[in-house]
């Protein structure tokens, strides 16, 4: 049982990490808590689902379609909400509250168009085989989610550390004003990060919907709550922190179910999180509110 629970924890951690990556990127660069991230996550899942069921696209094409739809949503999010609020130097809370409104609107539109009931991807879309390694049963999809979460994290880290764009993004995270003085296209980069973060959210939506066999309008809400916890635990805006935080929450949940009891799951997992934050308020990787991204 221990080996299987370990595998369960790794794949659940991968799910949380995947969700938290996009979420933390927006926070790191734009310095905004994007409460619409859960809705964009859901939008990605619906886009892929409809691409498969209505347009008859194969899964890889549906994934690209979902990325395009969620990227567009990210562009609109920045154009419509973040950008005007930036221009007016609105305080922190304004964009956060605005994203709550956007999240409710997106959810209502999806609920109105596709109904409130759970949907799922066609059963034959992915090979259903489970892999048996010793006492462990794991599906190919779970392995893909874990690998993809690690891969995306590596790409993001590499981009931030080694490329010119990454350099500019880090400058931006430090101080938008200084970056602008140095000739960085601040507005363009802000928009780019919103688009990239939403695209990540959309991909996460598709994979997690495949994993859980459930697509429904409110699917982003519980993920959002856990995502916020993961991002805070990892250190707001830190890419490695999002990954580590995701795995931490996965392990905390799975092992509290395994050894304490499922009714206590959330109490234990979030209690631990609370304890860590008491000891280290800036999160695991946070550098005491100096630099992000």
């Amino acid at each position, binding site marked *: 049982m221990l080996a*299987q629970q370990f595998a369960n924890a790794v*794949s659940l951690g991968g799910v949380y990490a995947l969700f938290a990556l996009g979420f933390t990127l927006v926070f790191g660069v734009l310095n905004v808590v994007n409460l619409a991230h859960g809705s964009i996550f859901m939008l990605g899942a619906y886009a892929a689902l409809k691409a498969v069921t209505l347009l008859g696209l194969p899964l890889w094409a549906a994934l690209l379609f979902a990325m395009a739809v969620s990227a567009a949503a990210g562009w609109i999010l920045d154009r419509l909400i973040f950008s005007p609020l930036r221009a007016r130097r609105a305080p922190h809370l304004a964009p956060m509250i605005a994203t709550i409104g956007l999240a409710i609107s997106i959810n209502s539109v999806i609920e109105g168009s596709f109904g*409130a009931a759970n949907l799922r991807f066609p059963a034959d879309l992915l090979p259903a085989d489970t892999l048996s390694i010793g006492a462990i049963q794991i599906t190919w999809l779970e392995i893909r989610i874990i690998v993809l979460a690690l891969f995306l994290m590596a790409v993001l880290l590499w981009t931030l550390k080694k490329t010119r764009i990454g350099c500019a993004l880090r400058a931006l995270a430090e101080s938008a004003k200084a970056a602008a003085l140095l000739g960085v296209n601040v507005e363009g980069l802000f928009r780019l990060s919103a688009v990239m973060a939403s695209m990540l959210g959309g991909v996460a939506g598709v994979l997690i919907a495949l994993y859980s*066999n*459930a697509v429904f309008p409110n699917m982003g809400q519980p*993920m959002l709550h856990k995502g916020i916890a993961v991002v805070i635990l990892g250190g707001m805006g830190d890419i490695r922190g999002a990954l580590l935080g995701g795995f931490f929450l996965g392990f905390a949940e799975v092992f509290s*179910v395994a050894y304490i009891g499922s*009714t206590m799951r959330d109490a234990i997992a979030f209690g631990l999180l609370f304890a860590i934050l008491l000891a280290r308020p800036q999160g695991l990787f946070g550098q005491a509110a100096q630099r992000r991204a």
Partner: protein
Amino acid sequence: MNWQTLVVRVIFAVGLGAEVVCAGEIKIGVAEALTGNAAQYGVPIRKGFELAKGEINGAGGVHGNKIELIIEDEQGKKEEAINVFKKLIFQDKALMLFGPTLSNSAQASDPVAQAAKIVAFGTSNTADGITSIGNYVFRNSVTEADILPVTLKVAAQKTGLKKVAVLYGNDDIFTKSGYDNFTKALQALKIPVTTTETFAKGDVDFKPQLTKIKASNADAIVLSALVAEGGPIMVQARQLGIALPFIGGNGMNSPRVFELAKDNSDNLWVGSPWSMENPAGENKRFISAFHKAHNGPPDQFSAQAYDAMYIVATALKKIKLSGKLEADRATLRDALPATQFSGATGPFKFRQVNDKDGKPAGYDAVQTAIVMLTKGNQYTIHK
């Protein structure tokens, strides 16, 4: 024609002392959730009422009087249910009321009907305590407290299970009450529980709980879940190599199991007051009439609404309406408890329940559950 005209006609007829055929209308209020989340139940319910009404009126109505339905949307919300009940009672002057859709709403609106002394007849309220509100509250929906013990007993006999693991959603009133009823039934049958696990709404991952259940060496998994979580639970259990039978509550009694757990849905036991597969003549007639009227298959909710309309029509046939609204409402109430009917959901009669102080109150359904087992993405009857 409205009530005043009916009253005038009745007075006229009585006054003349002549045998005048009075082709009036019997106004019945229907308060169901036709929009919002609960519309998935409310809309099939409306279709069931409309089908039965059409058939009854087509066959000459009740003593020559046609049944008229005043249908209102209560949106699955408590406040709306109260508003709609008030409108139907005081403004539309209905003879009786059907609805509301959800138990939650019934808790709020049925006291209004009880106070106004008008029958409130629920066709889909299964929570405990609804009919204890008072003696004007009726329902023909069979509660989980009646169905789950039967499901469990049949499944235990057929599979020879000795001990079970229990898995339920602990943040939902419906799945929690299903769990309570399962626990009672397990104690009554003296079946030991190896482990009890829970999950919450919106969970995507049930493997930790299922892994624990697998290690507990149970012979079956008792599952109180809505299909939204129950479907993925079945898929993930099979992925973990757990081939045990599932024994589900009413939440798992939905054809949506076969969408959400497609090809992983075998070996699930559920009990239901109604089944598409039930070969009884009344049920076959209902299914084909429903297909014709609504261009699609019925579900349990339309079957129960359809039967409820016939139960009321049967009661109405036994009484003579005076035209005085308050007296007629009371006469109908008095006629309902003894009414028996055999329809799409099988033979039916009422049983009086007690309120919190042990005094006689409203009426629940007495009906035999049909136990079904899933195989090849469909239910098969197993009793």
